[in-house]
């Protein structure tokens, strides 16, 4: 344990969608302390009305993402010592999403776009058919595998400047999901997926700035997935099938 006298200066955004401001708190520094530990300490010891969201605390559920010093991060997997600016750290709700209260954002727009991007399975068989064997080394399966570790934390969505400027843009996570399904041999409707990502807010709005790939805590590459969708939609325009 560090000295009990050592304190962190923590600024936490308090408010709702109508407005708010940063409030400052003093939090005792501890060894191996995560940003989520810091936020929890404030809620448990200083202000029980502080609202925030978390579940697993080990980087599996994707619910504790927040802006830490202006950067989207999983707070449960971010050691506070690695992000401290002197003794200071700021914690704010995820960017590009409506705020419900304090650090808790409304994730509905994020998940609505997931569905809008064709991110639902289109079955190719019924439950009575035998299970189709899939070659794990096929090119399409390898491509699909690159995106399936996404846990919907919305870090990429918060990092994306195109989402900030264009509210209709589907965003990196939803488009990566579409690309995964497009490459899934068990998905029966690839053209529906391509049509879903070719509209006003579709993959063609991406500027390839790469913030999604840079900040993804799972080290996935949504920018590459979006580039794949751009290629696939352009090809389908001429061929009208994959």
């Amino acid at each position, binding site marked *: 344990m560090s000295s009990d006298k050592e304190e962190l200066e923590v600024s936490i955004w308090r408010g709702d969608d109508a407005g708010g401001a940063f409030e400052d708190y003093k939090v005792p520094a501890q060894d191996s302390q995560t940003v989520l530990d810091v936020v929890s300490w404030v809620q448990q010891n200083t202000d029980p009305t502080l609202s925030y969201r978390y579940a697993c605390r080990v980087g599996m559920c994707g619910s504790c993402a927040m802006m830490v010093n202006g950067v989207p991060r999983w707070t449960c997997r971010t050691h506070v010592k690695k992000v401290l600016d002197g003794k200071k750290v700021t914690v704010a709700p995820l960017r590009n999403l409506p705020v419900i209260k304090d650090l808790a954002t409304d994730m509905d727009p994020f998940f609505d776009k997931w569905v809008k991007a064709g991110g639902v399975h289109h079955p190719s068989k019924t439950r009575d058919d035998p299970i189709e064997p899939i070659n794990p080394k096929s090119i399409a399966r390898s491509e699909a595998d690159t995106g399936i570790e996404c846990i919907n934390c919305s870090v990429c969505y918060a990092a994306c400047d195109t989402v900030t*400027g264009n509210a209709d843009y589907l965003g990196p996570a939803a488009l990566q999901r579409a690309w995964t399904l497009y490459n899934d041999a068990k998905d029966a409707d690839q053209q529906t997926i391509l049509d879903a990502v070719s509209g*006003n807010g579709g993959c063609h709005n991406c500027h390839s700035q790469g913030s999604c790939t840079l900040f993804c805590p799972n080290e996935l590459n949504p920018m590459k997935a979006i580039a794949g969708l751009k290629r696939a939609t352009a090809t389908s325009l001429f061929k009208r099938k994959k």
Partner: protein
Amino acid sequence: MLDMRLYMLQRITALIMAPLTLGHIAVMIYAIQDGLTAAEILGRTQGSVLWFLFYGSFVVAVSLHAAIGLRVILHETFAVQGKALSVFTWSICLILLAMGGRAVWAVTAV
């Protein structure tokens, strides 16, 4: 805001502009080697269907390409949308087309 149609149009016009730009620069470098007056340049371009098509297609490509690009900037940076955005896009396209077309006509018409 930027759908498949506008995206493809912007990429295709970029593909058209790239070789035309290189061709323009190459001809400029080649043509001025021994000095060249405006009258001599006009002597070669006026009445030339080839140069009319060369610069004419460049002007059309630029007008479409730039209008779509500025449309994106206006929407994402200044939140312009709907009819105002369409009016802006078409205005830029037509202004560039008129200015460029006038210039092409000036050097290629007899």
